[in-house]
């Protein structure tokens, strides 16, 4: 999961989305001037990475997109959002979705010239999963057998006086190197979606130099992707260049990339309009009103959809929200179309399904509670015995959520007569602290962007008991059972079928309210003749032609 950390509030900002690794393209070669491209250089916008650039420790977009360019994993996700394809993997074989034999392509290189071997994966994964390493993405390895031996839970939480016991082992028993290009992964339970996860940045291979000094590596990362790291001047710029020995796919068609670090997206936008910047992933909110950005940029404006969903979640642990008729009534009283049209100028789409429809395995239109039906809403509210007191809808006020949250509150108030108010919490940190501690007394804003493209990533973390982002503590044994069956299904197709059944039950329970599907508004300079966006809306750097 990655979090956008831009200081001012772009639409997509809100430090609220899980983001996936990407960086792949079906690059085709028409258009663009090969001569100009060959030694060409571009400047694109970015934010200062929060952490040293180590794949398993990067959870925000500023460092995340650089990681995506520097590394190529076993699989990668096509720009069109389809099913993952093998990248560094020659083959990923399994009979039971529990034991995977992974063969990697021989003789591919890291940027320091060393060869990518099977042990570069196993060592990297063991490092990330090992509790004392303190990696933010450690939980991604929890499927692997022996994870419990290397990662121990703190008995009284990180704030308590007791410390987590020293892990029994340093390596997971489920990882076994067979030869230089083959390794075997044994999971603790069958997991059909495991190969899909392998494209997420936590699963990238790391060169031998990493293990000598991880901290030093983070300031001078060495990857195996199409882009090579050159230098990083904190808060100013990150310089990258083409990796000429890249053999997995198309090389970069241009030579140099400078990621200029902006603190203000309007400053970046002004540079884009005046030709000093070549690409901005999300133009500022101020330029969206009245389609200003389209007038400024003309055919260089790119509107795209991203696999993100804006959600309002219920604290099911609060007695007042335990009646599912009440939850459905509130959800039905929200006119999503009006909100996306009036507040987001049509740049986002009203949500009508539980998993974002851009995700493989997700079905559009399966959220019956997402319709606008004030009559039925009133009946259901009466059936549920009404709602006493004030209904608060909390959001973090350090990003642009005020307008749409207030619109939702107003609609609930008008259509149901409930005293609904939108309440801004000053910072995202305070907001999340209350959510993590299960201390919310009303509904609250949430957001989700998939880590990897599969419907599993929209169900297990959000709606299964104990899920990593199931903050409302929704729990339905039927959903749990179906999701478990789906996760361990022998094939992805069967897994998707089972998840569809689970979604039907979730749809009856309405544990949260999907409100909108994310959209992105990007722009590029006249210099760029051809480019593509990745499945999560980042610039696909190998597709750029000048």
């Amino acid at each position, binding site marked *: 999961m990655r979090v956008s950390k831009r200081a001012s509030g772009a639409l997509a900002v809100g430090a609220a989305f899980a983001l996936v690794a990407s960086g792949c393209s079906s690059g085709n070669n028409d258009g663009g001037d090969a001569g100009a491209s060959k030694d060409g250089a571009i400047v694109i916008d970015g934010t200062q990475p929060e952490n040293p650039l180590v794949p398993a420790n990067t959870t925000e977009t500023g460092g995340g997109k650089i990681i995506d360019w520097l590394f190529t994993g076993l699989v990668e996700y096509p720009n069109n959002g389809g099913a993952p394809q093998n990248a560094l993997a020659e083959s990923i074989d399994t009979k039971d979705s529990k034991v995977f034999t992974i063969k990697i392509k021989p003789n591919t290189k890291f940027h320091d010239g060393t060869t990518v071997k099977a042990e570069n994966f196993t060592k990297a994964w063991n490092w990330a999963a090992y509790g004392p390493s303190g990696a933010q993405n450690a939980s991604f390895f929890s499927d692997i057998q022996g994870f419990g031996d290397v990662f121990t839970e703190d008995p009284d939480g990180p704030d308590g006086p007791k410390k*987590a016991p020293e892990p029994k082992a340093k390596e997971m028993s489920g990882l076994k190197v067979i030869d230089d290009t083959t390794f075997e992964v044994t999971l603790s339970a069958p997991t059909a979606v495991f190969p899909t996860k392998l494209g997420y940045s936590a699963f990238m291979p790391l060169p031998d130099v990493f293990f000598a000094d991880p901290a030093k590596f983070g300031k001078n990362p060495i990857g195996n992707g199409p882009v090579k790291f050159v230098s990083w001047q904190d808060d100013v710029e990150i310089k990258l260049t083409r990796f000429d020995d890249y053999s997995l796919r198309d090389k970069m068609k241009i030579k140099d990339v400078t990621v200029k670090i902006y603190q203000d997206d309007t400053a970046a936008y002004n540079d884009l309009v005046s030709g000093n910047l070549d690409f901005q992933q999300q133009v500022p909110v101020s330029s969206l009103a009245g389609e200003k950005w389209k007038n400024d940029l003309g055919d260089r404006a790119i509107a795209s959809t991203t696999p993100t969903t804006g959600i309002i979640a219920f604290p099911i642990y609060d007695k007042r929200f335990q009646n599912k008729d009440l939850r459905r009534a509130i959800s039905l009283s929200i006119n999503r179309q009006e909100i996306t049209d009036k507040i987001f100028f049509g740049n986002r789409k009203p949500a009508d399904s539980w998993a974002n429809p851009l995700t493989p395995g997700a079905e559009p239109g399966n959220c019956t509670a997402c319709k606008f039906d004030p009559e039925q809403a009133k009946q259901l509210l009466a059936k549920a015995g009404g709602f006493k007191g004030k209904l608060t809808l909390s959001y973090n006020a350090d990003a642009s959520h005020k307008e749409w949250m207030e619109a939702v509150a107003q609609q609930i108030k008008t259509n149901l007569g409930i005293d609904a108010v939108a309440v801004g919490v000053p910072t995202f940190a*305070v907001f999340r*602290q209350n959510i993590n501690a299960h201390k919310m007394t009303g509904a609250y804003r949430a957001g989700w962007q998939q880590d990897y493209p599969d419907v599993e990533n929209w169900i297990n973390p959000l709606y299964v008991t104990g899920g990593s982002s199931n903050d409302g503590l929704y729990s339905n044994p039927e959903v749990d059972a179906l999701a478990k069956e789906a996760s361990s299904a022998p094939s992805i197709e069967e897994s998707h079928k089972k998840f569809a059944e689970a979604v039907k039950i979730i749809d009856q329970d309405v544990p949260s309210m999907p409100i909108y599907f994310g959209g992105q508004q990007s722009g590029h300079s006249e210099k760029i003749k051809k480019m593509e966006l990745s499945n999560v809306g980042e610039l696909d750097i190998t597709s750029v032609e000048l």
Partner: protein
Amino acid sequence: MGRYLLRRLLQLVPVFIGTTFLIYWLVWSVPGDPFAGKCGDRPCPDNYVAVMTEKYHLNDSIWVQYATYMKNLFQGDFGTTFSGREISDIIMTSYPNTLKLAVVALSIEAIIGLSAGVLTGLRRNGFLDNLVLISTLFLIALPVFVIGFVLQWLIGVKLGIVRPTVSNDMPITELLLPGFVLGSASMAYIARVARTSIAENRRADYVRTAIAKGLPMRRVVGVHLLRNSLIPVVTLLGTDLGALMGGAIVTEGIFGINGIGRQVLRAIVTKQSATVVGIVVVLVLVYLVMNLLVDLLYAALDPRIRYE
């Protein structure tokens, strides 16, 4: 004079300790767990929080944290941010940028403000006087981000005369626009203070004597009148350097300058006391030294002021 200087320098010590503790405590009391929002819409894994808490002594009491911090500070160790970056490195890279911007702003406001003040103070109620009065009122009334965005859009984007944002090596020519924006409000105040001060002293006995003595007007204004009228202006300018540096955050954001403003803001939001204190400590020093300089300048400007 020597004793005065010594006494003033000694006074800096309690002020220094007091301000650093106050700032440390304030940031420490900002609500919110530093790791609650760090991993987005799911809690950070416990092992990550545990490792970070241990590394940055976050479980210690505020007193122990502050004492540890001060002990390290006196050994020249400013500490590191949560992302592992040396704070001294942040100070070294961001301070020169902010200082450069503040000095450009200060020069602009001194030159334009003072000239406008002197000209209008000598010829009151003329066209120029009214023009300056109205335009300064305008500058004071407008918030700095309005001036910033409007000028950036007009001069940078629409007319294309300058780059809308400052490039990384910060050439002086590109700093003129942000410097003007940053110094605009103070410039207006300086023009007004200088105007009043000049107008008042214009009627003083020594000016009349100088004119009666037959001194050329240039000398009367340049030496006698200006020098005596400068004291309030110098006070303003002296304290303004610190204010400009501390208040440059909006201007830095608009023009994409890598200064201390964004560092402080980010550190406050993520509850990193060490970073905030490290940066503000230097700012406090700038304030204290500038104040001392201003006081010493008084004596140079006006012989009637003496420090034993």
